């Protein structure tokens, strides 16, 4: 029980939080709703009085002041010849009621939309600030669902279901109060139906919900068959299995249809029994009302009033049962959204430093790993500003992680023995994250470009950059001429709705984007591998000319790239196995020199393959 209470309290607090700033919509909605409901009950009254006292012969059953006013006008006879006044009154009341109704609807919509906006904003902004480790652990589809359908459910609950329930209860209370004031016996008889209808709608709906779920699952299966067939069309054709696929689909289709038909039959019972109950109420009203009228306890006008009230309540009562059942879904959605919001974000601290970065980088005894695996072991090295470091390593040697630590995508905890990284002598943990990242231009291994123009993609990290800067960057990255070949040049849209770039092109755009940042530290995480050898060397020579003062770190496996660096590091299973200049490492006769010798190995191989018959 306790857990449930805590959850309920948590849910309530959550709703209070998001309602902040939006209360005005809620109150307008409630007040206009109350006014509209009250007004809507006046029309039947007017009709009743008209029928009884104007058309009929009874005395006016009105409050004294009103009765006097009517008498002043000329009483019954006047009204009889000017019946349109009554009609007009009914109409006027309806118009007022409608106006309030509109404001109620609209303020409800405003509440829903403002809540949606707020929730979406909260979620989006928070997600952007969550640490990289969270992003790696989630499934995009799951998060998307929470940000869309769960948000909808919560907003629907507050602005729709909740206000609906309040309105319907309000209507019921007022209607029955009025009915009781007219005739207790008949009102009691009608009252009996209320719990029946509500309970019936709620209970039945629960049963049907289960059927809906089964039908949903069958649809999921049919969807899977179709999707497998369309994406695997080559296999289906190549093996000539069209007949079998068709049979499989027809079977799934039939299963789906049958389940829905069964649900439909249940729905048929649901609606007809519901109709039966409503019709019984109307019949009972009419018959009992007639009896009472004949015995002089009621007037015909009053029966009509009763009938009108009863009619106004029929649908809302059935809705109430169903709405009450659906409201529990909101709790689940709130939980799912809270899960995201409660994760700790990357914080900016007040003690953060914003030093000017020159580019001296030092790794001191860095050891780092993930849940069950150590990735880096005791890595220490130093890189002076303006120098280039090339890193060579096999898959899983820890190269990328080395770079991710520099960027604070992961943080090192010195107290846990993970070591530290300093830039210009300052520990990076003390430097403001965004400031640090702005000063380190990193090109990732798999470049990600946004669905936007090439120009906007390039300017993303440096919105104030100049045209010249952009073109100089794209020239260095050997992509300028390719961009000009596109129909709209720099304004070409890329991504799903636009042009698809090849792997090499994307890589070069990403490199240009990094260059535009004009940062003191430049990092390439194996970014030149998608580009062919010629372009690679062209880019690097251009880079050399450009970036004399930039500290550069390149991960690569191409000897030509490695050779040029001021320092070369060979990383193996998380440890630095060799470090030095090209000539130093060749002398070591270790991994580096073996790799360097591959070239001559290749020439040997060629000779055996081809040489025998003369080249």
């Amino acid at each position, binding site marked *: 029980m306790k857990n449930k209470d805590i959850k309920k309290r948590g849910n309530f607090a959550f709703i209070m939080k998001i309602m902040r700033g939006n209360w005005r919509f809620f109150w307008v909605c409630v007040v206009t709703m109350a006014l509209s409901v009250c007004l809507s009950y006046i029309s039947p009254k007017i*009709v009743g009085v008209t*029928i009884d006292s104007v*058309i009929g012969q009874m005395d006016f059953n009105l409050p004294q002041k009103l009765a006097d006013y009517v008498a002043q006008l000329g009483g019954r006879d006047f009204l*009889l010849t000017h*019946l349109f006044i*009554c*009609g*007009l009154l*009914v109409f006027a009341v*309806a118009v007022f009621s*409608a106006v309030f*109704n509109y404001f109620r609807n609209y303020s409800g*919509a405003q509440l829903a939309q403002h809540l*949606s*906006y707020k929730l979406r904003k909260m979620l*989006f902004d928070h*997600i*952007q*600030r969550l640490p*990289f480790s969270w992003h790696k652990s989630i499934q*995009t589809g799951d998060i998307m669902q929470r940000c869309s359908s769960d948000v909808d459910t919560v907003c629907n609950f507050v602005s729709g279901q909740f206000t609906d329930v309040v309105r319907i209860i309000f209507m019921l209370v007022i209607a029955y109060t009025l009915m009781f004031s007219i005739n207790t016996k008949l009102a009691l008889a009608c009252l009996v139906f209320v719990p029946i209808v509500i309970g019936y709608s709620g209970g039945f709906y629960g049963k049907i919900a289960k059927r809906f779920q089964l039908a949903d699952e069958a649809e999921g299966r049919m969807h*899977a068959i*179709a999707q497998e067939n*369309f994406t695997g*069309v*080559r296999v*289906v054709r*190549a*093996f*000539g299995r*069209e007949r079998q696929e*068709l049979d499989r689909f*027809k079977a799934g289709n039939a299963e789906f249809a049958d389940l*829905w038909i069964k649900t*439909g039959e249940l*729905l048929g*019972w649901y609606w*007809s029994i519901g*109709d039966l109950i409503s019709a*019984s109420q109307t*019949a009972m009203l*009419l*018959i009992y009302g*007639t*009896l009472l*009228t004949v015995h002089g306890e009621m007037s*015909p006008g009053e029966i009509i009033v009763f009938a*009108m009230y009863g009619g106004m309540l029929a649908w809302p009562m059935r809705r109430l049962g169903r709405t009450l059942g659906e409201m529990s879904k909101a709790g689940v959605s709130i939980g799912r959204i809270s899960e995201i919001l409660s994760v700790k974000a990357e914080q900016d601290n007040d003690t953060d430093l914003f030093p000017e970065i020159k580019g001296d980088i030092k790794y001191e005894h860095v050891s780092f790993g993930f849940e069950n695996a150590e990735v880096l072991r005791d890595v220490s090295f130093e890189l002076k500003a303006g120098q280039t470091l090339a890193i060579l390593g*096999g898959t899983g040697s820890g190269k990328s992680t080395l770079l991710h630590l520099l*960027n604070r995508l992961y943080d090192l905890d010195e107290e846990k023995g993970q070591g530290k990284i300093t830039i210009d002598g300052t520990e990076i943990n003390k430097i403001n994250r*965004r400031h640090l*990242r*702005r000063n380190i231009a990193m090109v990732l291994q798999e470049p*990600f470009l946004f669905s936007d123009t090439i120009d906007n993609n390039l300017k993303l990290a440096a919105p104030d950059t100049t045209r010249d800067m952009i073109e100089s960057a794209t020239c260095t990255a050997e992509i300028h001429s390719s961009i000009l070949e596109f129909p709209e040049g720099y304004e070409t849209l890329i991504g799903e*709705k636009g042009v698809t770039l090849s792997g090499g092109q994307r890589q070069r755009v990403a490199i240009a984007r990094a260059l535009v*940042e004009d940062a003191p530290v430049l990092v390439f995480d194996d970014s030149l591998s998608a580009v062919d050898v010629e372009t690679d060397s062209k880019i690097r020579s251009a880079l050399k000319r450009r970036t004399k003062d930039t500290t550069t770190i390149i991960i690569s496996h191409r000897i030509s790239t490695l050779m040029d660096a001021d320092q070369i590091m060979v990383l193996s299973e998380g440890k630095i*196995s060799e470090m030095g200049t090209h000539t130093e490492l060749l002398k070591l006769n270790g991994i580096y020199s073996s*790799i360097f010798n*591959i070239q001559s190995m290749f020439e040997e191989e*060629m000779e055996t393959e081809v040489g025998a018959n003369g080249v």
Partner: protein
Amino acid sequence: MASEINQNNFDEYALSNKFEFKEWKRMLVFLGNHKRYLIPLLICTMITACVDALIPYFSRYAFNNFVGGNTTQGIQWFILLYAIAILIQVTGTIIFIRNSMNLDLRVGKDLRNACFEKLQRQSLSYFNVTPVGYLLSRVLNDTFSLGGMLAWGLADTVWTVSYLIFCSVSMFILNWKLALLVMVVLVGALVICQLMEKNILRLNREVRRTNAKLTASFNEDITGAKTIKTLAVEDSVCHSFDKINVEMRTKSLRARRLRSVFQPIILVLGTMILAVVISSGSGFAGDPEGLGTLAVFIAYALSIIDPISNITDFAVDLIALQVNVERINRLIDAEPLVKDRPEIVEKYGDIFEPKRENWEPIKGDIEFDDVTFRYPDGNVDVLSHFNLKIKSGSCIAIVGETGVGKSTLVNLACRFFEPTEGQVLIDGVDYRERSINWLHSSIGYVLQQPHLFSGTIKENIRYGNPDATDEEIIEAAKVACAHEFISKLKDGYDSNVGEGGDLLSTGQKQLISIARAVVVNPRIFVLDEATSSVDTETEQLISKVISTVLENRTSFIIAHRLSTIKHADLILMVDDGKIIEQGTHRQLLRKKGRYYALYSRQFENEEQGKIFART
């Protein structure tokens, strides 16, 4: 390879301009197939409408005879009759819903089967240019909506029109002057409803379009989290999202504002009718039957507005769904690019009913005779007067970088596409003189991504040949070196592969797909980048398998790992869809051209990998 997809064709939020009956006429045929539900539905609808229109007469009778006459004599018969009327209503509802549901789902089912069957006949080029999502929407979602529309829409409209006709007739009989007045208001109501609904529809589409933008933005910014953090552009990304978020709120409110006005207006219109009725009440003042007639008119006034808005709902829904009807019609009409001539179908059967008795055995000689070819959506000839003779049993390798169009030759050989000019001969006969299925049943195909279907391992292997015995399946698994790991699984060959093959590693799945191809005992074997998505260990295993499997079969190997194709009888190097070099491995190396460059690069990578693996 394919040119840009014209986005407009796949815009999910397009609206038709006007009503085209001929598109809907084709849908009516589907309705006609289910007369046993359609006819009772229509009859029952009209009867219930009639009873619904007559129910107020009970009130009239009650008022005139019992209240007016101040007697309750004969009330038992009255109650009985009323009960019977209610029973008819309730039974009517049950029949209505049952038949509607059946009609809805059966029509939907037929539509789905028709679409799916058509797609099985479609050629590959169709799937290359049509997104899978589009197809799924048409086959699953549109058919569902259309089924609903054709069944419920029709039934509702028949009920509404019948009800309105019966009410009108009834009103005219009782008091034609009043009836006329009511008619005027009704027509006005219809016009207003129509105008509003059309606009609401348009605004709703806008909202859905914006929602798609919102979802896409959310999706992109979660997927690209690493890049966003690295570039430190969280703020700008949040800012861009906020713009879309606000747009969503604004557009939603605009749509809701219109809808908020709609409902009150409907109520006001209904009350207008009521007011009109009341105002003319003086005509009933002295009439002994007057009160009863008045009651009837009041009942009609209250209940007649909703049907009016239902009609306009229906008209607007027709417009809304028309786009989907057009799309489904086009899907069903689309002629496949590659199909057999009628004489061929006569002799060899078609894909659903093959006539295997007439099939000649295949040896496997393939000849490209003066073949010119361009892709249907391409604007350049990919092959031009191309000639190549392949003897049965030889191995042809096709190499090149990723995505350069290596599959063209295979596509032509397997008759997934047909030459624009020239012919492809199998065993000396143009393959268009034999059926498509004849060729496909002799092809074993292994793709880059092992495409398994949900089911057991045994079912997946059997997919290649439904008549295969268990021994044949195990034999094929042994040849594919898959038997060992399958036997180690808990359920062995009956193990579930999981949706899309989730429960096995990629390497294991690939071995199973090789077994699937082997079981066909094909004369022509195609390995389409079969090893590019597996790890090195599995790749070596598969290479071993391949050499055994390909003995005595004509084979095509598409690869970009050269170690697997060194021993092919002929190697074709492809770039940008065109064959730029051909020869044996030795000949090509001697040329020192692109093949040589590719080979040296791969050699380097492989050796590097080995060096790192050693440490």
